[in-house]
C-alpha cells in the first residue's frame, strides 16, 4: 500500500541530517569532552581521564543540590501548571461571557521571555516588599515566605514564576480538550443519575488524559532546560545555599566562569542520561498505549 519507501525517507532527510549534526554530533562531542582533562582554555596535552570529572562532580555539594532541585522543580512546576490549567479551564468553560478577555489575560504571560518574567518575580518575591507586603495588607500575613531567599523554599519559588508563565498554555490545552468532549456524554451521564463529582472523575478526567500526557512532554522539556529564569531571580549562584540552583545554571557557571569545560560537559552528560532514563520509557509507554498520539 505504501509503495515507494524512498520518498518518505527523502522528505525526512534534511531534518535527519540537521539533527544528526546539531544534536547527536554535539552530544558525541560533549560525551568525549567529559572524559578528558580539558578544564582550562588551553590544555596541552589533552588526555583522556576516564570518569575523573564525574567523580569530582559527585563530591560537589552544588551539583547534588542542583539535581535534587530539578526533581523538586519539575514536580512542582508540572503539577502546578496542570492543576491551575485544568482549574482555570473548568472555570472559563462554565461561563460563556468575556472569553476573549480571559484568554488574553491567561495567555499574556507566555508572551514574555523568561528573563523578563524572572526580573519581575524577583521583585515580587523580595521578602521585605512585593507579595509579602500585599499579603500583609490583605490580612494573609501567615502566607508570607522568604520565597527564593529561604533555603527551604528556594526552587519552589522559581517554580511559581514558571507556573505563572506557562499555565496559560495548559489552560488553553485543557479548554480545547473540554470542548472536545461531546455533550451527549454528559447528557447520558445525568440521565443515568451521575453526580457532578462522578461525572468529573469518570468522564471528564479520562477523556482529558491525552491532553495531560501531551502537556507533560512539553512542560517536561521546559523544566529540564530552565536556566534564564533561575539566573534572573536567584542570581548566577542559584540563591542561598544553592537552594534554587539547577544543573543547567551550574554547567553555565562551570564552563564560562571557571573555565572547566570537561567538567561542564560531564554535567551535560549526566543530565542527558537522566533525561533518557525518564523520557524514553515515557514515550514508549504512551506510544504503545496509543494515547496522546
Amino acid at each position, binding site marked *: 500500500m505504501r509503495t515507494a519507501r524512498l520518498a518518505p525517507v527523502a522528505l525526512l532527510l534534511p531534518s535527519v541530517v540537521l539533527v544528526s549534526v546539531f544534536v547527536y554530533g554535539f552530544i558525541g562531542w560533549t560525551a568525549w569532552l567529559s572524559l578528558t582533562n580539558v578544564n582550562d582554555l*588551553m590544555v596541552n596535552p589533552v588526555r583522556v581521564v576516564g570518569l575523573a570529572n564525574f567523580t569530582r562532580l559527585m563530591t*560537589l555539594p552544588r551539583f547534588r543540590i542542583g539535581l535534587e532541585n530539578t526533581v523538586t522543580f519539575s514536580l512542582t512546576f508540572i503539577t502546578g501548571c496542570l492543576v491551575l490549567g485544568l482549574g482555570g479551564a473548568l472555570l472559563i468553560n462554565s461561563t460563556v461571557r468575556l472569553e476573549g478577555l480571559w484568554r488574553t489575560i491567561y495567555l499574556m504571560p507566555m508572551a514574555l521571555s523568561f528573563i523578563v518574567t524572572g526580573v519581575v518575580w*524577583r521583585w515580587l518575591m*523580595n521578602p*521585605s516588599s512585593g507579595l509579602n507586603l500585599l499579603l500583609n495588607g490583605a490580612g494573609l500575613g501567615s502566607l508570607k515566605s522568604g520565597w527564593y531567599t529561604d533555603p527551604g523554599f528556594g526552587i519552589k519559588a522559581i517554580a511559581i514564576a514558571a507556573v505563572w508563565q506557562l499555565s496559560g498554555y495548559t489552560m488553553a490545552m485543557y479548554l480545547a480538550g473540554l470542548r472536545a468532549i461531546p455533550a451527549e456524554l454528559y447528557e447520558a451521564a445525568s440521565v443515568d443519575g451521575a453526580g457532578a463529582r462522578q461525572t468529573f472523575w469518570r468522564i471528564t478526567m479520562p477523556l482529558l488524559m491525552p491532553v495531560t500526557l501531551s502537556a507533560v512532554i512539553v512542560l517536561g522539556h521546559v523544566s529540564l532546560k530552565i536556566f534564564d529564569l533561575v539566573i534572573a531571580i536567584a542570581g548566577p549562584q*542559584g540563591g*542561598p545555599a*544553592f537552594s534554587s540552583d539547577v544543573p543547567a545554571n551550574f554547567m553555565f557557571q562551570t564552563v564560562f566562569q571557571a573555565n*572547566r569545560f570537561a567538567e561542564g560537559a560531564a554535567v551535560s552528560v549526566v543530565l542527558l542520561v537522566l533525561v533518557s532514563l525518564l523520557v524514553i520509557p515515557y514515550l514508549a509507554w504512551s506510544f504503545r498505549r496509543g494515547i496522546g498520539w
Partner: protein
Amino acid sequence: MRIRVMGWGIGVVLSLVVLSAMAQGGGKLEIFSWWTTGGEAAGLLKLFEIAKRQQPGLEIINATVAGGAGQNAKAVLKTRMLGGDPPDSFQVHMGRELTDTWVVTGFMEPLDDLFKQAGWEQTFPKGVLELLKGSDGRYYSVPANIHRANVLWYNKKAFQSAGAEPPKTVDEFFQVADKLKAAGVTPLALGDNGIWAATHLFETVLIGSLGAEGYRGLWTGKTDWSGPGVRKALDAMVRMLGYVNADHAARSWDQANDLVIQGKAGMTIMGDWVDADNLAKGVKDVGWAPAPGNTGVYDALSDSFGLPKKAPHRAETLNWLRLIGSKEGQEAFNPLKGSICARTDCNSKLFGPYLQWAMEQWKKDAIVPSLAHGAAAKESWLTGINDAMSLFVTGKDAAQAQRLLTAAAAEAAKK
C-alpha cells in the same frame, strides 16, 4: 570633443573616489566590554571620541554585553576566543583573571615595547605593575582605572542619631552595630544576590584579620587557609551576618545601598562604584571611610585592556592601548566612570570629593589585589570560593567554610 569631456568627467570622478578612499584612511577597532549604561558607558564613549579625534576616519564597534559583573560577556568572549574570532581588545580585570585565563593559555601578546615607549614603568605604581605581569615577567594589559573595594559607606544622619562614629576596627564595628540596632536601624546593608557581594565583604574581613601581607600570602601559598587567621575572619563574618538586613539574598548591591541612602540601614561595605550610584541619585549625606580593620590598605581592582594574539586590527589596537594608559585618556575616562586613575600623575581637580580622597590614599596605602573582582585569584579558584560563600552565608558554619576554602585553594594549586 564630447569624448574629451567624458574623459575629463571620468577622470574627475575617479580622483574623487580615490581621494575619499584615502581620507577614509581610518581603520576599524572592535572593543568588547560590559559597560552598557551609566557612567561607565559614558566614560567609554569619551575614550572613543578621543580615539576618533586622534585617528580620523576610525570606525569603532562598541561590542557590549550586559549582565551583572560580566557573566554573559564572559560566555560570549570565551566562545569567540575559542572560535578564533577575538575582538581587538576586551575589558578584563587586571591580575589573575587576566593572566590565568588568557596569558598562561597563550591568547595574549606581551606589551613590553608599548610600556617602554610610553614610559609607564615610571607612571604606574609598583603594586599595579606587578599585577599586570604574566608569569614570564612581561606586561600583558593596560589598566584603565583603579577601583577600591574596601570602603565603608555610612549614612551620616543615622550615625549622628545613634551617637556613633565610623568604626576603625572590627571590634569597633560590633559596638557601632549595637548602637545602630538600638536606634532601630539595620546596622549593615548587604545585597548578595549572586553572592559576589558576600565574597566582597569577606575579603575586607580577611584583610582586617590577616593584614596586607597575610592577605597577599593567601594567594601565593604563604598563608595557610586552614590557619587561625582565616578562622578568625570567618568567625567575625558570622557575627557580622547577624547584623545584616534579612532580605540580603534578594537584593543586589545597589538595592542594599538604597537602604543606606534611605537611612533604613546605617552602613554598607562595598566598592567605590557606590559613589557613582550616590551621585547619580543626587544623594548628599553619605560618608565614607576605610572598611573596619582596613586602614592603610588599598584593596584594588582594575578594568584593563590587552592585545589578543589574533586581533584583526593590531595597529589600531595598540593606539587604543596607548590611549587607555595616557594621561589624557585616564583623565577623560575616570571622572565619568567613578574611579581613579591608575597613573599617579592625574589632575585631582577633575574628580569629586570621594575620588580625591581615594587618590590621596592610593599614593600611600599598601596595595592588595581584590579577590571578588578577579585580581587575586584565578577564575576557577574564585568560583570555588564563591560556592563556599554560598553555603557559608546561609549555614554560618565557619568550620565547614574553612574546609571548603582550603579545598578550593588546594584545587587551584594543582597543575
